[in-house]
C-alpha cells in the first residue's frame, strides 16, 4: 500500500485523515493486506465462499405495508430541508 492507494481509498470511503497520520495508517493497512495475502496462498478452489457467517437462510417478509408516514420527523432531523424535500448541496452544474 502506498500513498496514492491510500488517497484513493480515502476518496472512496469519503474519509478525511490528516497527512501526518498517513504513514501510520499505511503501516496498519499493509499488515492487514499481508495477512490477506497469506490467506490467498491457500488452495481454496474447492471451498464454497462463505456468504454469511450466520447459519440462517430464507429470512423474508410478506408484502404488507406498515402504513406509517414519518415525513415530518425525517425532514426535521435532517441537516437541511424544506416542507417537502431534503436539501443537499447542488450535485450537478
Amino acid at each position, binding site marked *: 500500500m502506498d500513498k496514492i492507494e491510500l488517497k484513493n481509498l480515502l476518496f472512496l470511503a469519503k474519509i478525511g485523515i490528516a497527512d501526518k497520520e498517513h504513514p501510520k495508517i499505511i503501516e496498519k493497512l499493509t499488515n492487514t493486506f499481508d495477512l490477506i495475502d497469506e490467506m490467498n496462498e491457500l488452495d481454496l478452489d474447492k471451498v464454497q465462499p462463505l456468504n454469511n457467517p450466520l447459519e440462517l437462510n430464507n429470512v423474508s417478509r410478506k408484502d404488507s405495508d406498515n402504513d406509517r408516514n414519518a415525513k415530518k420527523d425525517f425532514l426535521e432531523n435532517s441537516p437541511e430541508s424544506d416542507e417537502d424535500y431534503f436539501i443537499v448541496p447542488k450535485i*450537478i452544474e
Partner: protein
Amino acid sequence: MAQNDTLVKGWQPVIGLEVHVQLLTNTKLFSPARNNFGEDANTLVDLIDMGLPGVLPVMNEEAMRQGIKFGLATSAKIAKTMIFDRKNYFYPDLPKGYQITQLHFPIVRDGIVDVDGKKIRIHQAHLEEDAGKSMHDQYDSKSTIDLNRSGVPLLEIVSEPDIRSAAEAVNYLKKIHQIITYLDISDGNMSQGSMRCDANVSIMRPDSKEFGTRAEIKNINSFKFVEKAINFEVKRQIKCLEGGETVEQETRLYDSTKDETRSMRTKEFANDYRYFPCPDLVPINISSELIKDISNNMDELPEEKEQRFRKVYKLDDYEAKVICAERQTANFFEEVSKNCDPKLSAKWIIGEVNALLNKNNISLGNSKITPDNFSSLMAKINDGTISGKIAKEVLEEIWSTGKNAEKIIKSKGLEQISDEAELESITQSVLDNNSRQVEAYKSGKDKLFGFFVGQVMKETQGKANPKSINEILKRLLSG
C-alpha cells in the same frame, strides 16, 4: 450467407441492453413502506429507506416471486440460492451509501427471448433496490431529494450482446415490455420510469472475431429514444474509428432535445463499487416446490394467448398477434367477445379502435371506450340497425362521450332504414330525378349501378341498408 442488412456503412453494430423494471409490489424490496408512483414527496419512506443506523432490511417475498415469474417466462435458470450484495458509492439520493443488488448469485440466469423469430439471450436478471430522486431546479445552489422511490424493487434484465440494430433493440424492448405486463409484475410505464433502459453499444467489421470497445448510454426512457440514441451512437463511433481515433469505454448520456449522446465526465478515479455480500441479508434458497407453485399460478403468456384466441375465437395469425400485442387489448377483446361476434369485434378493434388510439396517442384503458359501450356498437352492426359507415360515426361519438351506442343512434336518428316501402319510394324518386342515367344504364352502362346506390345513400344520409338498396334497385331498373 443471407444478406446482412444490419450493417451501417460497412460496420456491424453490436448492442446489449440493460432494462430496469420496477416491480408491482405493495411495498418496497427491504422495507414495509408502500411502493407507489406519484404520491407526495417523502411520504413513502421507512427507517430502512432512510438508512438509519441499526435498521435491518428484510426481503419482500412478493418481489422474489415476481422475479421467478420472469425467469419462468423466459425459460431461464432460477437460482437455487440467491445472495444479495452491496454496491458501494456515495450519492445524496442513496442514504445508506450502498445499493443492495445481486452480483454473483442473481435470481435468474440464461434466459431466452424470442424477438420476431430471433433468439436474444438474457445473461441474467437480478433483484435490486431503486435509488431516490434528486431534483435540481427548485433552488439555485441546492438540490432537493425525494426518497419515495428509494428501496422500490427493481428487476434488472441484462441481455447478451446479441442485438445487431437499433430497430432490433426496440423490438427486444417491446417484447420485454409485453412479457412483464402480461405477467403483471410491472406496469411497464416508461414515461413514469417504471421501465428504463441502458444500452451498451459497440461497432466492429463484419468479419471481425472481436467486439469493439463499447460505450454505455444511460437512462433512456422511451422506445423512440432507444432507437435514436443507438443510431446516433453508432454513427459517432464510425466517425471516430474512420477518423483514426479510438472509442473510449465510457458512460454517455442521451440528450433527446439535441438528439445526441454526450460523455458524462469521467471522474478522477474510475468507478470502484467494492461489491461484497450484504451481511444484513442471509442467503435465500428457492425450492423447487415454490417454483412449481408459481408456475402453476402464472398468467397466460402472449404466445399462449395468441394460440388460444386462434382456436377459440377463430382469429387468423395476424388478428391474434395484433389483438394480443398488449394485454389490455387482449382482455378487452375477450370481454367483448362474451356477447359479440369475435371476428367482427377483432376487425373493429384492429382497424378503427387502434386508429383512434394511435391518432390520440393514448391507451385503451385511458380512453372512454369500454367493453360495455363497444359491445353495444357491435350488437347494432350485427342486427343491421346501422351500416358500417354510420358505425364509424357512432364509434367516434363513443370515443368522445363514452355513451352507449344505442343512445347515440337514437338521439342522432341514425337507425338504418330497412323499411322496404320507404326505401322503395326514395329509390324511385332518385331514378325519376336521374332519367338520363337510367337510360344510359339500360343501354348497357352497368357501372352506373354504383352511382344509383350512392344517390340513394346521399338521400338517406347513409342510413339505408345497402343490401336492401341493391335488391330494390335491381328490381326497379329491370322493370
